[in-house]
């Protein structure tokens, strides 16, 4: 049982590259913290620094009230689940789990009890004598989990543990991990680039970008009030529609609020409705339907704005500028090429400063 606190943690590589530019995170005892961000944002590096696999070049990492900057990984009382599982290929499942306990000089009888208990929980009891190569991806993943839990460490670290599994298994394992963590009540830090995993697992969500923390908080709070345009477009799928407030069409509709300072307007796809009315204080946009995606429960409408100046690309390569995504119930589907009008109410508008770094309250 332990808190994990990062204080102004930095990582600069010998070449001068700054991978982590000062991160402060406080994970309470038994909490599940998820680090999420695009690849190269430094989330894995940060996790490896907590594990002791990367040196810390600035700031402090505190696990359970002890500064661990100079402490070996083995002595930090942590367990880690790797992306490729990192099982010992020459050892049986039993020995994979027992290895860490043997290294600590635990009695064989106690090891046996612990390994068998972990195997029972993870439904691996019938496979203890197998070698990792005789297991499926999901089973290997469970062995990696087992190796972590038999140690009964203060902290679990997960480095994208589900990214090598297929979509169905990923969802099943995600639920398993959450249940297991709740039951063991062990402080956990989990790295992923998948925002859905992040939303569903986290007690505390840390959104990272370019070696910095963009926003920390409860996942739903982040979803409802993203602090920057980066967070707004990264959390939520499909991403939030972001557009410049400069065109007269939008500026006039926002009059009367502090939207004058705002440079960017954001509206989530599900907050639009197709309507001819303009809600009081809200925003309405005329669109031409370019494409529709019907996925059953819902329909995504990809529309282009009539005026040609548009959506601010927050993260490159996400959507062509000027395109607006609207999420509507699966029962509806406008025709391609149809002219529609979509609107969102005032409470659902997100306003950001022109550089996208600051959220403004409407």
């Amino acid at each position, binding site marked *: 049982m332990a808190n994990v606190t990062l204080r102004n943690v930095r990582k600069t590589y010998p070449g001068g590259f700054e991978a982590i530019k000062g991160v402060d995170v406080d994970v309470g005892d038994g909490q599940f913290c998820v680090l999420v961000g695009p690849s190269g944002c430094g989330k894995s590096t940060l996790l490896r620094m907590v*594990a*002791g*696999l990367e040196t810390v070049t600035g700031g402090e990492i505190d696990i359970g009230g002890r500064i661990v900057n100079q402490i*070996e*990984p*083995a002595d930090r009382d*942590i*367990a*880690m689940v*790797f*992306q*490729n599982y*990192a*099982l*010992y*290929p*020459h050892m049986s499942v039993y020995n994979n789990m027992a*290895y*860490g306990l043997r*290294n*600590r000089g635990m009695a064989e009888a106690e090891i046996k009890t612990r390994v068998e208990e972990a195997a029972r929980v993870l439904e691996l009891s019938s496979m203890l004598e197998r070698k990792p*190569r005789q297991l499926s991806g999901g089973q290997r993943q469970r062995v990696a989990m087992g*190796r972590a839990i038999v*140690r009964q460490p203060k902290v679990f670290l997960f480095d994208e543990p589900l990214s090598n599994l297929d979509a169905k298994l990923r969802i099943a394992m995600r639920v398993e991990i959450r249940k297991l963590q709740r039951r063991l009540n062990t402080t956990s830090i989990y790295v992923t680039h998948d925002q859905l995993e992040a939303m569903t697992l986290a007690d505390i969500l840390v959104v990272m970008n370019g070696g910095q923390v963009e926003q920390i908080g409860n996942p739903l709070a982040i979803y409802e009030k993203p602090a920057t345009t980066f967070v707004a477009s990264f959390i939520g799928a499909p991403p939030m529609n972001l557009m410049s407030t400069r065109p007269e069409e939008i500026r006039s509709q926002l009059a009367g609020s502090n939207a004058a300072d705002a440079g960017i307007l954001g509206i989530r796809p599900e907050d639009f409705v197709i309507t001819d009315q303009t809600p009081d204080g809200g925003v309405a946009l005329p669109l031409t339907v370019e494409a529709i995606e019907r996925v059953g429960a819902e329909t995504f409408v990809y529309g282009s704005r009539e005026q040609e100046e548009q959506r601010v690309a927050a993260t490159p390569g996400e959507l062509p500028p000027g395109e607006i995504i609207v999420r509507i119930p699966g029962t509806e589907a406008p025709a391609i090429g149809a002219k529609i009008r979509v609107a969102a109410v005032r409470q659902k508008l997100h306003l950001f400063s022109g550089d996208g770094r600051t959220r403004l309250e409407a």
Partner: protein
Amino acid sequence: MQKQAIFQSKLLPYALVAPQLAIVLIFFYWPALQAVIQSFLLQDAFGLSTSFVWFDNYIELFRDPAYFESILRTFFFSFAIAVSSLSVALLLAVMADKPLRGSTLYRTLLIWPYAVAPPVVGVLWIFMLHPSLGVISRYLRAAGIDWNPLLDGDQAASLIILAAAWKQISYNFLFFLAGLQAIPKSVLEAAAIDGARPMRRFWTVTFPLLSPTIFFLLVVNIVYAFFDTFGIIDTMTRGGPGKSTETLVYKVYSDGLLGGNLGSSAAQSVILMIMVIVLTGIQFRFVERKVTY
């Protein structure tokens, strides 16, 4: 998928494999067959008459205690050369595997000795350890060691083992380095988190994962020690003093070319040939299996 190549002419495929076949037939099967025939023949002392003696050459060989001594000696040499060269190479590879500055340079330098021909290796070491010329010999004698490999058989043997093992280190190093780099980093990191200190990590994770490489190199080194040490022995000791460095291959040469006993020499060659076939068989049988752990 098309599995068979189709040729318009029936002769063309044969013509295409002919050069390769010719080389194998002329340079391998013909001499091998000659050796087998020769091993059944006995010549008189002046080489004037030759008679067919069936297995007499072999029987005589197996009655000769000197031949058994040579077999034992060869096994001992092989074992000593393989073990010393493998362990030094492994140590160097483990150290070179660390991310250090200039690692490309010293990796390259460590590989160079492999390019040196065996007789040159022999000459190099003789220069260092010759009783009267050697640089190192002077220090050995100054340290009170009676160093004279020209007279002392054990010292001569250790000299051969030293030179032969030294030459093979590069080859082993190369394979060990590749083997070490093939071990996923995360497995070693997992072991570090699992509380294994570097030494324990090496013996419980790295070493077992290297075992296919080690086994492969063991066979290669034994074959090397059996056959390719001829040049080193010839330049350094010529099988002497006495017969203390006469391995099986050297005995073939000295009995046949120096002693003129072609029949016995041929019989020894045939026995060596069978040994190579067995060793190669072992190699194919075990090494070619992809997973050995």
